[in-house]
C-alpha cells in the first residue's frame, strides 16, 4: 500500500474578499507535502461541504475575516458530518476573538488559529490529529 497523502480543502466562507492568509496557509501546507484543494472566495457552507465530499479530503481548513464565523463554521461542520464524513478534521482561522473560540470548539471545530500563528503550528496540528 502506498503512503496516504493528506488532502486539505482550504476554503473561504463568507463575504470578505481577503484571501492572502488562506493563500499563505495553502502554500505552507503544500510545502509540508499535503495536497491542497483551494476553491476561492465567497463559498457557501453548502459548497464547502460538497467540495469536501467530492475531493474526499482529510481536513477542511477555513479562513474568515468578516466576523461571520459563529454562524458559518458550525454550519460547515454540520453539513460535512451530514454527508457521512465523520473523521474529517475541521479547523478554522482568521480574525476570531478569543471569547468565541470555546463555542466554536464545542461546535466541532478542532482548532482555531488566530493572526500571528506560525504556519508550522498548523502543519503540526494537522499531522498530529488527522485520521
Amino acid at each position, binding site marked *: *500500500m502506498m503512503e496516504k*497523502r493528506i488532502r486539505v480543502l482550504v476554503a473561504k466562507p463568507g463575504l470578505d474578499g481577503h484571501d492572502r492568509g488562506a493563500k499563505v496557509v495553502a502554500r505552507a501546507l503544500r510545502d*509540508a507535502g499535503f495536497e491542497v*484543494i483551494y476553491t476561492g472566495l465567497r*463559498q457557501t457552507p453548502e459548497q464547502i461541504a460538497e*467540495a469536501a465530499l467530492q*475531493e*474526499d479530503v482529510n481536513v477542511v481548513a477555513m479562513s474568515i475575516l468578516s466576523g461571520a464565523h459563529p454562524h458559518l463554521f458550525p454550519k460547515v461542520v454540520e453539513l460535512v458530518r451530514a454527508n457521512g464524513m465523520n473523521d474529517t478534521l475541521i479547523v478554522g482561522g482568521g480574525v476570531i476573538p478569543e471569547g468565541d473560540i470555546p463555542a466554536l470548539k464545542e461546535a466541532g471545530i478542532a482548532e482555531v488559529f488566530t493572526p500571528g500563528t506560525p504556519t508550522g503550528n498548523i502543519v503540526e496540528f494537522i499531522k498530529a490529529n488527522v485520521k
Partner: protein
Amino acid sequence: MDIVKDLLNGSRLALSRTITAIENEYDEAVDIMKELYPHTGHAFVLGITGPPGAGKSTMTDKLARAYRNMGKTVGIIAVDPTSPFSGGAILGDRIRMNSLTLDEGVFIRSMGTRGSLGGLSHKTADAVKALDAFGKDVIFVETVGVGQSEVDIVKAADTTMVVLIPGMGDDIQAIKAGILEIGDVFAINKADHDGADKLQMELNMMLDLDGEMKEWRPPIQKVIASQGEGINELVAQLDKHYSYIKENGVLEQRRHERTRTELMELLNASIGRYITNSIVKTGRLDNYLEDIKSRANDPYTIVRSLLDELLVK
C-alpha cells in the same frame, strides 16, 4: 463489496472514497476496479489540454454547463502538478468551477500528478472508469498546463481538445511536434486579444500541410470562455467529432488501443512489483549492489538471472 454497491447505487461518498483508494493504491482498489469494470465503457471521455493559463478550467466549466443543459450528467477530473520536492500540490482548478459544485449532476475531482510526467496522473484512467461506472454521460479530463510534449491525454480520451491562446510564439511553434499533433478540435481562447486571427491562420496552415492524408480535419473554434462566447459552437464541433469517430470505427480503434496500453502497463507494473518485492524483502538487493560496486558482477547479468529464476519455470 459494499463500496461498489453504494457507488453503483449513486452514493457520491462511495465514488469519492473509491477514487481515493485508486489514487493511494490501497489494497482494496484492485478488487473495487474488478467489480466496476463491467459497468464501464459508456461515457464520452473528452480530454482538454493546453498551456498554463490558456483557460482550460474556465472552458471546462462552460462546456460542462452546456452539456448539463442538454440533460447529460458530467464528471470532471482536473489534474494539477505535484511538487517534485515536497510531494505537495495546490489543486486550484475548482476555483473556476464553483457554479457547478452544487449541481447534483456534476462530480468534480482534483488530482495531483504525483510524479507522472505526461500531463496526467498514473491513476487518471482508473478514476475515469469510476466516474463512468457511476453513470456519468460525459467525462472531462483536464490536464496540467502542458508545454510541448505532454501528450498522455490522447491515450485516455475519446476526443482531445487543445486550447490555445494568442501571443505565444511565431508560426514555427505551430509546426513543432507535440500537443499540436493531438488536437481533434482546436479552441482559440481569449479570441478578443490581439493575434487571434494570426494564430488561426497559422494553425490552418499547419493543418493544411497534413490535410490530404486525414479524413478528419480538426476544426478551429474561436472562443471567449469567460463570457461564454463560442461555447455552443465548440460543443457542436465536439459532438461532430464524436459522431465521426463513432461512425468510422475510429472510436473502437482508439478504445482498443487504450485497452491494450492499459493491459500492458498493468502487466509490466505487476511484474516489476513482484520482482522488486522478492529481492527487497529478502535483502538480496543489498548483496547485488555490493557485488556491482566491487565489480564482482554487473547489473545486466543480475537482471538476466533474476528473470530466469523468478519468471521462467
